[in-house]
């Protein structure tokens, strides 16, 4: 564990990313303290530029505080990112592990199924799902999970396949361990590092997808999100640039941080690759 932290720290970008991420987490945790009023309430005159009338980042077309919107939106972004990634992991790891371990026809069928989901334009499919099941935080998480599990399944399957032929798994087989025990104690623990790295990147992608859906007006109508803020600012960009610029920066920083942390994790978990990169 100490080793892991030492290797992680060696990647400076990853440390910066981790700091940003902690700040975003703090912001979302303290949103109700910093901005006790609902972000939907009118707080100032419409279209106030940043700094005026106590509006740190300006106000929007209905006089709502952009800064409050960003703080409250941070919660939703992180929540959607985390929950949909967890759901996608559940689907992906299960299907990938079964495909890799069972092999044969089961593997074939599951991989065709995965390939199909990887072929269809995922964002268009997500739009369709959210539109048909009507926008809500549930349908958004569902849609993002449905379109983002295939890479997990492929990675897990590849790992399981390569681990399966490794001699320590064969040794476990010769010792007479049950298949499920082998999968859980010998195979999956050794497939963990790529899954961890992948999931940090998936959270980033999920946040991007959620913001894009909200931008198109498919966000949960009761929740303030970053994508919604940008969408609202789109048509008035000529008079109120701050309405789109600041929420966009929030997304950018969060996603960047997650990517940096992902690279740091990858370096720390695969020291061999990290040395090559240097």
């Amino acid at each position: 564990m100490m080793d892991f932290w030492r290797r992680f720290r060696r990647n400076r970008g990853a440390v910066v990313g981790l700091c940003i991420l902690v700040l975003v987490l703090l912001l979302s945790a303290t949103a109700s303290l910093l901005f006790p009023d609902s972000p939907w309430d009118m707080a100032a005159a419409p279209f106030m530029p940043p700094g005026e009338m106590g509006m740190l980042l300006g106000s929007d077309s209905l006089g709502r505080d952009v800064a409050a919107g960003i703080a409250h939106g941070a919660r939703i972004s992180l929540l959607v990112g985390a929950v949909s990634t967890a759901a996608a992991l559940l689907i992906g790891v299960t299907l990938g592990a079964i495909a890799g371990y069972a092999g044969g026809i089961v593997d074939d069928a599951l991989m065709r199924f995965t390939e199909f989901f990887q072929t269809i334009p995922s964002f268009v499919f997500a739009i369709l799902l959210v539109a048909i099941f009507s926008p809500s935080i549930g349908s958004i998480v569902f849609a993002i999970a449905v379109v983002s599990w295939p890479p997990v399944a492929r990675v897990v399957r590849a790992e399981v396949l390569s681990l399966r032929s490794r001699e320590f798994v064969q040794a476990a087989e010769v010792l007479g361990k049950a298949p499920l025990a082998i999968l859980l104690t010998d195979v999956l623990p050794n497939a963990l590092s790529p899954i961890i790295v992948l999931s940090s990147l998936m959270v980033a992608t999920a946040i991007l997808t959620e913001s894009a859906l909200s931008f198109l007006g498919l966000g949960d109508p009761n929740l303030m999100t970053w994508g919604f803020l940008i969408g609202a600012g789109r048509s008035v960009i000529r008079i109120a640039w701050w309405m789109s610029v600041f929420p966009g920066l929030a997304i950018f920083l969060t996603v960047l941080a997650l990517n940096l942390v992902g690279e740091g994790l990858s370096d720390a978990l695969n020291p061999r690759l990290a040395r090559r990169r240097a």
Partner: protein
Amino acid sequence: MDLTRLPGFLAARLAKAAVVILAIVVCNFLLIHAAPGDPASVIAGQSGAADERFLAQLREQFGLDRPLHVQLWIYLKGVLTLDLGFSHRQQLPVWTLIQARLPATLLLTGTAFVFAIVTGVTLGALAARRVGRWADSLITVIALTFYATPLFWIGLMLVLVFSVWLEWLPSFGMSSVGVELHGMAVVLDVAQHLLLPALTLGLFYLAVYARLTRATMLEVADQDFVKTARAKGVPEGRVLRAHVLRNAMLPVITFAGIQAGQLVGGAILVETVFAWPGIGRLAFDALLARDYAVLLGVFFCTSVMVVAFNLVTDLLYAVVDPRVEAVG
């Protein structure tokens, strides 16, 4: 692969593509039925559902009172004869609507794709060659930045800078409104309108290709055959071009195929930001109107585009990599 086996390979891939397209149709059909409420009103679109006579007509047309498999069969027959339904909102068949918008989308995605892959591979190769030096760091940082930025926000920022502040380029549409243009002027006008949207769509994928190319080039550069090339005295430039880059292109081709679907998804966002009159914009308008027939049609068409594109990348891969066998 040796080229005599290409026809067999092509046949296998075509068959596979057909299966995928069939599955997409089934998927569409299931979505209509999975949606809460009356399938007829889903097909008609929620906001157009008031017209009871139209709903009755839809039920008749799709056999909605008959068993599910019969309905599927009717639906399949419809889609395979390019009958993608009727937009009650716009009073036009969906296929007619899509057909009219398709060229604009192909122009946008095509331009963005070529821009992204050419620039991305070049930058990635450059970064790999100067690994650890400032050029590498710069390219890596740029790639990471675009990789982490929401596409639609890049679009908005470009509009803000180049259209609102600098007033250099138009911010919406595909051609200037209210002016008569002829010949080259039309091309120039479209090109001017195309620049920002194509750049927006391309930048993200540029980042993806740059990162991928850099990573695979570094990986290939470590392999034994590269050392063999050096050991026989091949000059460094040729080692990179003929040995490293050529092998590093293989994953890039694979990835281009996988990315195709996302490129189309990105087009919806970009067309929305720039009011580009393609099927993405059509989808956005349909979304506002909850016009599901159009949305399903767009999903089907974009899927077919991706499947076709995958077919091309598969063939390309098979031609480039001699190890590919003629099996699925």
